[in-house]
């Protein structure tokens, strides 16, 4: 069977599975729709959270980003896992103890203000919509690349599947499909990783292969990689910093606190039975996430080495050291057709030279070899995961599995985000503010209707991506970090922070972050409106716009503290609410 048949088969099978789950798990009440009835086991919730959390970016792009940034890419690994420690320690158990359905609901009650709730809803929608566009786009692109449909068709199929289980089942349907999606995606990620590790290091466990020896000559893998790429003028893999150390610090912090402030992740912890289960399921979630996150850096290093050695087959500078275009492996041509790889024979020698031509010193050396610039003009980050099975000569079904895994990652995250959006519309805006008197039944229908609206909006934006779609995922973290995380922490741990402080803090935090991003990337990412330009000299202490969420969070805390100091104290009954969520619940029986 060829790859395409396998892909149709495996993707078709997983989709049928998701639809089956949708029909089996219809939601009958708002409690089932918003929090899956509130009796999911910690282990299941951990698995669902892992799928909810790991998006197309984690699955397809992260390993590639690390492959090309080396040590600097560690910010994603630490940032996207360390946030779970914060979630488990500072957020999840307390919001579970509070025991309601949405994040803005907590903010509204803790800060005794419909305005605070509304501001929280707006922050939530801004964060979740920027995030979901990337997922929908990912679904469309995966379809178009592998099944040769156009992006719109792929996107519509994806929307149809999500529609089925998210509208019918709400959180209940989403939870069970996410569990299935986790299994698909983790299998799809680890199987090729095991094979590539075996091939390069002889060790079947990628995490051990990373610190093991390169099979061909017995030198440590990472040392080999450093030698191979520095010989071509690239920076050392194991020490290349991303920007500066301060930037790495701020970036990691932004990603961590952004993670702990993402509403679609937080609401997953409302689905477990009790507070201790919320803590435990954060632990399980991180176990399941860590399986992928510790495999990814191994894949990154191995794929970079493999890729570089495919082009630079032997000694640098000798004519025979570079591969002849006619001898390129099949996968090379195949991926060139998809636009993820592109080479140009600039010096017309019929061979490919892949080196760092922006390194002045090495460029001069290379010119002496008769090289006229780097001929690998495009290497997409995603190629490192996508082409892995082929580089390792794995059978067609493994390639198909990677496609199904990428789709599972994108769909599971999209569904979680859509639920966060629709529940904040039906529960916070409609039931909470506009029409408080609607019945449970009416609210359930409103929830379904807003889910349909959210899917349609996400689909529309996926087909016609606005300019700001380019910055999406990293941007969403900065916004969550600067608005939602600080207000939750202050709500739980600082009784003195009052209504005025919280509102001013949220507005100031998200405002300063947006301003910083816009002044470097343009208003809503329209480049022509950027007045400072995206260049190092203009960055605040060398902190990139993506890493700025941490600064926004600090602004949020400071503003909230000062404003609370000069305004009226938090009312007594609210202070009692805070006391209550801090304490364990005793058995009344």
């Amino acid at each position, binding site marked *: 069977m060829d790859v395409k048949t396998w892909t149709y088969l495996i993707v078709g099978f997983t989709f049928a599975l998701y639809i089956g789950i949708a029909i089996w798990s219809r939601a009958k009440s708002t409690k089932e729709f918003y929090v899956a009835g509130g009796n999911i086991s910690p282990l299941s919730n951990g698995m669902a959270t892992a799928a909810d959390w790991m998006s197309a970016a984690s699955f397809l792009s992260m390993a590639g980003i690390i492959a090309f940034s080396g040590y600097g890419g560690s910010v994603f690994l630490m940032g996207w896992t360390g946030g779970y420690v914060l979630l488990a320690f500072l957020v999840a158990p307390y919001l579970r103890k509070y025991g309601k359905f949405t994040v803005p609901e907590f903010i509204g009650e803790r800060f005794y203000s419909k305005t605070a709730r509304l501001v929280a809803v707006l922050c939530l929608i801004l964060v979740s919509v920027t995030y979901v566009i990337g997922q929908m786009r990912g679904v469309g692109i995966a379809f178009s690349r592998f099944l040769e449909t156009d992006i719109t068709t792929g996107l519509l199929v994806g929307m149809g599947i999500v529609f089925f289980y998210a509208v019918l089942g709400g959180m209940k349907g989403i939870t069970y499909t996410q569990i299935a999606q986790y299994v698909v995606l983790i299998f799809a990620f680890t199987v090729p990783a095991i094979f590539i590790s075996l091939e390069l290091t002889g060790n079947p466990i990628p995490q051990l292969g*990373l610190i093991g020896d390169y099979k061909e000559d017995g030198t440590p893998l990472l040392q080999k990689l450093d030698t191979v790429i520095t010989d071509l003028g690239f920076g050392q893999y194991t020490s290349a910093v991303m920007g500066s150390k301060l930037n790495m610090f701020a970036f990691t912090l932004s990603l961590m606190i952004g993670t702990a402030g993402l509403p679609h992740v937080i609401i997953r912890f409302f689905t477990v039975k009790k507070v201790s289960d919320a*803590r435990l399921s954060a*632990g399980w979630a991180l176990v399941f996430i860590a399986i992928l996150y510790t495999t990814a850096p191994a894949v990154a290093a191995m794929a970079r080495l493999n890729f570089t050695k495919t082009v630079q087959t032997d000694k640098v500078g000798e004519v025979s050291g570079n591969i002849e275009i006619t001898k390129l492996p099949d996968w090379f041509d195949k991926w060139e057709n998809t636009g993820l790889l592109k080479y140009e024979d600039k010096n017309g020698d019929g061979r490919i030279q892949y080196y760092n031509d922006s390194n002045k010193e090495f460029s001069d050396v290379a010119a002496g070899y008769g090289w006229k610039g780097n001929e690998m003009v495009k290497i997409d980050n995603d190629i490192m995961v996508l082409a892995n099975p082929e580089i390792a000569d794995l059978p067609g079904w493994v390639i198909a599995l990677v496609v199904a895994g990428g789709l599972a990652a994108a769909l599971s995250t999209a569904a979680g985000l859509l639920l966060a959006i629709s529940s904040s519309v039906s529960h916070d805006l409609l039931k909470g503010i506009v029409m408080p008197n609607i019945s449970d039944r009416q609210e359930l229908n409103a929830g379904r209707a807003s889910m349909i609206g959210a899917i349609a909006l996400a689909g529309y934006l996926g087909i016609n991506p606005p300019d700001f779609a380019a910055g999406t995922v990293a941007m969403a973290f900065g916004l969550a970090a600067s608005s939602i995380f600080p207000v939750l922490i202050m709500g739980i741990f600082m009784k003195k922070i009052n209504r005025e402080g919280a509102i001013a803090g949220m507005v100031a935090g998200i405002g300063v972050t947006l301003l910083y991003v816009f002044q470097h990337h343009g208003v809503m990412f329209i480049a022509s409106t950027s007045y400072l330009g995206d260049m190092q000299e203009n960055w605040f202490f060398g902190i990139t716009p993506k890493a700025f969420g941490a600064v926004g969070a600090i602004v949020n805390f400071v503003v909230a503290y000062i404003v609370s100091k000069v305004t009226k104290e938090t009312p007594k009954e609210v202070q009692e609410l805070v006391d209550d969520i801090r304490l364990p619940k*005793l058995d009344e029986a």
Partner: protein
Amino acid sequence: MNKKEKDIPLQDTSLHSENEPMTKEQYWKKNISCVLILLSVWFIVSYGCGILFVETLNQIKIGGAGFGFWMAQQGSIYVFVALIFIYVRLMNKLENQYAASHSNHNETLTDGEENS
């Protein structure tokens, strides 16, 4: 987490008998100090080992990798996982202690389980 707490065996059953009354404030203080200690570990393994002191630590080798690099890409994640499970155990124990000193005869704790 003070010395005394560490010495208490982790089985829940042993806790109910030897409890002393624990006030809300004591419970909250213990919770905060437990979180702060664990968060300092969280900070050291990621920001400390993985970013601030990475070059120095890279002198030490773990397999074929420098220790700082390894912490940034592998080690910190394993420690994060361990930290959450340690926290789960410590908090369950603390909650049981609190519950035991607050219910006279009924010494079971439902941990905030909902009765709806």
